[in-house]
């Protein structure tokens, strides 16, 4: 990384060296070097699970790193708790603002200060004027829009005289106008000599506000340098794995699906809901349809609404000729759709229950494992079958699922979704946070599913994954489908561009 530091005259305001971090067996950061100088804004980009948020939490003192050091103004700093990082002039504006919802804006900003309130208020007003904010300080935080909440977080940082400001995907929930307002603020902050780390998913933003850019992939920084040295295409290339091209050549002969002979099992027609609009697509038995897009594009909202987790606002979802629009989850399940949720911990796992309990939890609504009494033998048989099929590494079916590694947990969650013998399986980020070996197993499971005639709808932020598995792919951008690709059109390049809102000229 030394090469990148060349040309910078001053000592970096913040520098991290060789940061490593693992959660259990899961290595998230594999030695990160990164530096940012006063008045610079470094854009940090990368897919989900690349480790960006973890790195920022380490800098903020919320996590401690396993190895590596953090230097502030060239001096080694010992950060282990948020208070220490705050004292060192670091402030993190988290992706989901951590405001006190029942307090006023003023109280939120001044919370935790020890100075005189009148003085603080004066300083606050100065900051607000400087930045041209117009926000009623007496409003309660839970009445603020996300953008306003982010402004409050920014003010918090400035009031603390933060010299290093971290913005974690600040625009992911903002509308276009709000984004422009935020950019103006960031420009002003840069002029004031504040060092900014700007995490984003949107490539265009990099060129608008960043001075430098770094790309993170699988816990490493794969590319770093001044923005001027790069083009969008180069950044996209940096987001792709090194062996991407080699991998594509390795691919086995692909057997095309003869769509003309098939009747779609799932038809989605002009479907609208909270977070997505006018979505139309068909899903055929025995195919994998990949849905690509960045976080916040509305993919998760789309599929969870199909699954009956949220209210549909318009359009139709038809499964095998039967209208299932707006049904409750349990009825959607019965109709023949099952779901592997994105957030395994929050929506998927029953952590302190056994593996067999977890595997068969979706069968409690059917007679498969008994009418009134639990048929424990049947429950075990079913669970064992999936453990064998999926090569899940377990000691005993009675072990708590919380004791398994992420990959094995995910296999159990997938097993659960297959246990109801669905016609359509929806996978939301099927390989998030699991290691390479487990990933290969999950891919095999998905392929087997397809071969058995099940229709698979797969949402993934991992473009590589979409390319590798999909028979067809669609991309979702800002709540709408902005691209549909047949198998031979799917490349990482095309999908990445479309996910970031750049629709390239179609070749076919």
């Amino acid at each position, binding site marked *: 990384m030394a090469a990148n530091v060349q040309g910078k005259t001053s000592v970096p305001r913040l520098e991290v060296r060789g940061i490593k971090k693992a959660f259990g067996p899961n290595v998230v950061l594999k030695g990160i070097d990164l530096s940012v100088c006063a008045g610079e804004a470094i854009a940090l980009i990368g897919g989900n699970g690349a480790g960006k948020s973890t790195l920022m939490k380490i800098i903020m003192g919320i996590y401690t790193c396993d190895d590596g050091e953090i230097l502030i103004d060239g001096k080694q700093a010992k950060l282990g708790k948020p208070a220490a990082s705050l004292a060192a002039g670091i402030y993190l504006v988290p992706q989901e603002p951590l405001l006190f919802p029942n307090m006023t804006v003023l109280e939120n900003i001044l919370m935790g200060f020890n100075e005189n309130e009148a003085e603080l208020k004066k300083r606050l007003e100065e900051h607000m004027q400087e930045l041209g904010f117009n926000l009623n300080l007496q409003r309660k935080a839970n009445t603020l829009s996300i953008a306003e909440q982010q402004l409050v977080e920014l003010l918090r940082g400035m009031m603390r005289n933060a010299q290093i400001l971290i913005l974690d995907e600040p625009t992911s929930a903002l509308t276009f106008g709000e984004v422009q307002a935020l950019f103006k603020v960031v420009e002003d902050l840069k002029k004031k000599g504040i060092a900014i780390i700007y995490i984003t998913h949107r490539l265009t933003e990099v060129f608008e506000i960043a001075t430098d850019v770094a790309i993170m992939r699988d816990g490493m920084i794969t590319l770093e340098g001044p923005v001027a040295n790069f083009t969008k295409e180069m950044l996209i290339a940096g987001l792709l794995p090194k062996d991407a091209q080699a991998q594509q050549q390795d691919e086995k002969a692909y057997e095309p699906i003869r769509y003309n002979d098939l009747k779609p099992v799932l038809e989605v027609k002009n479907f609208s809901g909270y977070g997505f609009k006018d979505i139309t697509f068909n899903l055929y038995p025995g195919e994998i349809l990949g849905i690509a897009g960045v976080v916040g594009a509305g993919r998760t909202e789309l599929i969870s609404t199909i699954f009956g987790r949220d209210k549909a606002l318009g359009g139709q979802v038809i499964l095998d000729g039967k209208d299932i629009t707006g049904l409750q989850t*349990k009825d959607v*399940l019965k109709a023949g759709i099952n779901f592997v*949720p994105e957030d395994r911990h929050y929506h*998927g796992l*029953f952590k*302190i229950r056994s593996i067999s309990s977890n595997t068969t939890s979706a069968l*409690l*609504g059917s007679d498969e494992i*008994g009418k009134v009494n639990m048929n424990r033998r049947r429950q075990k048989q079913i669970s064992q079958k999936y453990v064998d099929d999926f090569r899940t590494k377990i000691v005993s079916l009675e072990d708590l699922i919380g004791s398994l590694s992420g990959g094995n947990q995910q296999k159990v969650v997938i097993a659960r979704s297959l246990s109801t013998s669905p016609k359509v399986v929806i996978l939301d980020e099927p390989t998030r946070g699991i290691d390479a070996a487990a990933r290969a197993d999950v891919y095999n499971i998905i392929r087997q599913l397809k071969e058995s005639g099940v229709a698979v709808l797969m949402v993934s932020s991992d473009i590589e994954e979409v390319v590798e598995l999909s028979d067809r792919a669609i991309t979702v951008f800002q709540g709408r489908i902005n691209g549909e690709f047949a198998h031979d059109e799917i490349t990482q390049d095309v999908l990445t561009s479309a996910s970031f809102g750049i629709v390239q000229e179609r070749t076919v």
Partner: protein
Amino acid sequence: MKNLLKKVFKHWELFLVIFLILEFVIFGAANPKFLRPKSIMNSIVNYISVCIISLFVTLVMITGGIDIQAPSIIGLTSIIIGVLWSDAGMNVWVATLIAVVVAALCGALSGFFIAYCGVQPMVVTLGGSFLYSGLALLVSGFSATPAYKGISGFPGKNEAGEFISFRFLGKGTLFGIPMQIVIYIALIILCIWILHKTKYGEKLYLIGVNQQAAEYSGINTRATIMSTYVLSAVSAALAGTLLTANVNSAKYNLGSGYTLAIITAIVLGGTLNTGGKGSILGTVLASLIICILRYGLPLCFDVDTQNLDLPVGIVLVLVVLGREIAGQGILQKWFKKKKV
């Protein structure tokens, strides 16, 4: 030592069994009179309401809820039975049935607010405890008997002086075992079946561990949660019936003051108050431990019968502290600090 502690706390029921045996050994050695089966059974009968209700409130707590209104339903049931029987002239069994139905409706009402309106269970059942005890007092106003006196004279003593009919429930025996204990045992078996053998029981656990994930598994979590409050209310009605038959008096305020005792038994039994973990066996063992403690201490160590809260409280505090310390590895933390 550390590992041993961890193991014992891991197999909670084992710990409780050891505790119970120790009680028998110590009390038995201190005073041989302690071991008379009749007295032991009597100590359980004296505490039967707590024993029975705690079984079903365990189901509520497994789902992550709490029920502090059940004791107020004891009094409500009792006074309804009394008024319907004595003042409305109904058959006592019909009166009982009506009382149980009313109790079930009370449970359903609170359960509805908790499950469908998302109000905290603690607050709703606190309101419920005021409401249902208030209703009990109002119902007592329909009686010719003054509220403080209690309606007595329930049927069943035959010429031979044996308890029959309604009072058989409270005073009768079956093969020498008090009827109340027979019913308690039946309810224990019922609850073990419900919680540990049926699909419904499985759902209760899953909801308690992760309600969101349960929804994704297609479980109707709201109806299920609501049903647990109905069950606990019905169990309170049953306890109220037994208590009425036992003391031969229907009173609006029977059972008041049992709230904390019920929660204590369940918590001591190892049920997590955040839900998802616990067992009927644990609750039963903990109830018995408390019964025996309350019976043995006055008999063997001359502790005043009025002052049995203290030992029970000390046991509860020590046990929950011990569990946290063992579970969180606070001991290890201390150990490490010393080393540094």
